[in-house]
């Protein structure tokens, strides 16, 4: 049984039909990437999974439970954490307070300390800056903070929306390495990316989205060799 199973998902924004029947599965332990052009519905897919928007039709199953109508804050408790598009850290909270908000659903102090240790281990920079206000971090550090904050809840499934957006090439490379590292330590990842080449490189499987529909899917290696993918998303002729 897959960790996440989505069937025939339809999501609307008012009259805008953003998702037109998405089917998607993520197995435990995988990195699955969702690629597609601007406006294809990648962010909407993640937002529907995490409960920020409600689907009009279809079902979302996580760990065998249907979560379509579970409020967003309870979905986090179930083990899904969504890092949204743009570096939306809490600017006037300290780095430490940001991380503590990430652990909001955890009551056990010992578990929180343990998660904090893991996050600082992954991002030593955050430990150095823990008393600084989030808004004073550099762009790259802010992106580390959004990911670190999400990991504080120790999610089973991490939804990442364009984590490399707006970062310098060096940092992009580091972020993708970090994602692979997080996965190697046991977290399943659903990754949305504009940077299709880098995403396909680290992913096990991929889905290609066009105007609210899945048009292609398969092992990432295969999609990387696919003619249509190379033309449309990898910038080749």
């Amino acid at each position, binding site marked *: 049984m897959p960790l996440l199973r989505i069937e025939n998902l339809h999501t609307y924004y008012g009259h805008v039909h953003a998702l037109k029947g998405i089917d998607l599965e993520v197995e435990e332990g995988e990195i699955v990437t969702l690629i597609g052009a601007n406006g294809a519905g990648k962010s909407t897919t993640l937002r529907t999974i995490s*409960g*920020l928007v409600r689907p009009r039709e279809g079902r979302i199953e996580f760990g065998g439970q249907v979560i379509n109508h579970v409020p967003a*804050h309870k979905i986090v408790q179930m083990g899904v954490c969504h890092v949204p598009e743009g570096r939306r850290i809490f600017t*006037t909270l300290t780095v430490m307070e940001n991380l503590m*908000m990430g652990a909001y659903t955890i009551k056990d102090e010992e578990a929180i300390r343990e998660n904090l240790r893991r996050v600082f281990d992954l991002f030593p920079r955050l430990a150095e800056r823990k008393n600084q*206000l989030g808004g004073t971090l550099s762009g790259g550090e802010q992106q580390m903070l959004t990911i670190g*904050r999400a990991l504080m*809840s120790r999610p089973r499934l991490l939804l990442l929306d364009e984590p490399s957006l707006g970062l310098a090439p060096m940092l992009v490379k580091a972020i993708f390495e970090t994602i692979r590292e997080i996965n190697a330590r046991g977290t399943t990842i659903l990754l949305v990316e504009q940077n299709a080449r880098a995403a396909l490189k680290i992913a096990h499987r991929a889905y290609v989205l066009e105007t609210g529909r899945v048009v292609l899917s398969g092992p990432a290696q295969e999609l990387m060799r696919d003619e249509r993918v190379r033309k449309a998303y990898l910038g080749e002729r």
Partner: protein
Amino acid sequence: MQQLLQQLINGITIGSFYALVALGYTMVYGVLKLINFAHGDLFMWGAYIGLTGLSALVALMSRGGPILILPVSIIVIVTIALVGVLIERVAYRPLRSAGRLAPVISALGAAFILESLARNIYGASWKTYPTGLVPAGRVALVGGVRISVMQVLVLVVSFLLMALLYLFVYRTRIGTAMRAVSLDHEVSRLMGIDVDGIIATVFLIGPGLGGLAGMIVALYYGSFDFTLGWIFGLKAFISAILGGIGNIPGAMLGGMILGIIETLGAGYVSPQWKDVIAYAILILILIFRPTGLLGERVAEKL
């Protein structure tokens, strides 16, 4: 010098009233970006419920004394807090995604309803609090400054409440979540924070504190009428803006500054001119710091 100190103490007393009420405006603005126009009237209702409670208790026990204030304070806090939560539930929550204007009208509506209710139930005449609740004496401080027992009482209570609120907001998990919700509802939900629950908590604390302030103010001045909510509410609102709306230490600071400027203006120039002086200074401060004294520009991005 002695007069200045005396005036400062009076100013801080009035300032702490403004601050207690300003906190309610600023906390609600923080989480909803809405001016809760009903807040001044909730504050006034605190004065009325305090009146009913204290009068009843004095009659029942056939004695005065400060100890009677305690149970009535609790009744006032609980009642006004519950009314605050009720208003949020029926007047604000259904309009949360309805743009900025509809909730403002709803808030004004709630304010008018509360004020009308007070006038219809208690009448438009001046109401007087029972006497003998607080000893009438004065305490001598250094430099010949004298301060009434009443002033000591209200200052101690106000500062204690503000300190507790500060610790709650800046040192606890729920308080931090409250600040997170003020910055970004959506990301707060993604952290597992029950945003509706946090907003309800704000509507418990703000009005609870404001209602208690209503009782304290009425006790301090001895009498009031139904216009109390409007006048005091407006000044507290101004304090919140002056300190930087949404900012909790700002509301405390803004209230103190407004109270002190008003009192010094009344004492050194003339009572008739105190408002002219106070508000001219306010306008000046806002020209130079449009976001208020402690207003955070970083937060404005969102």
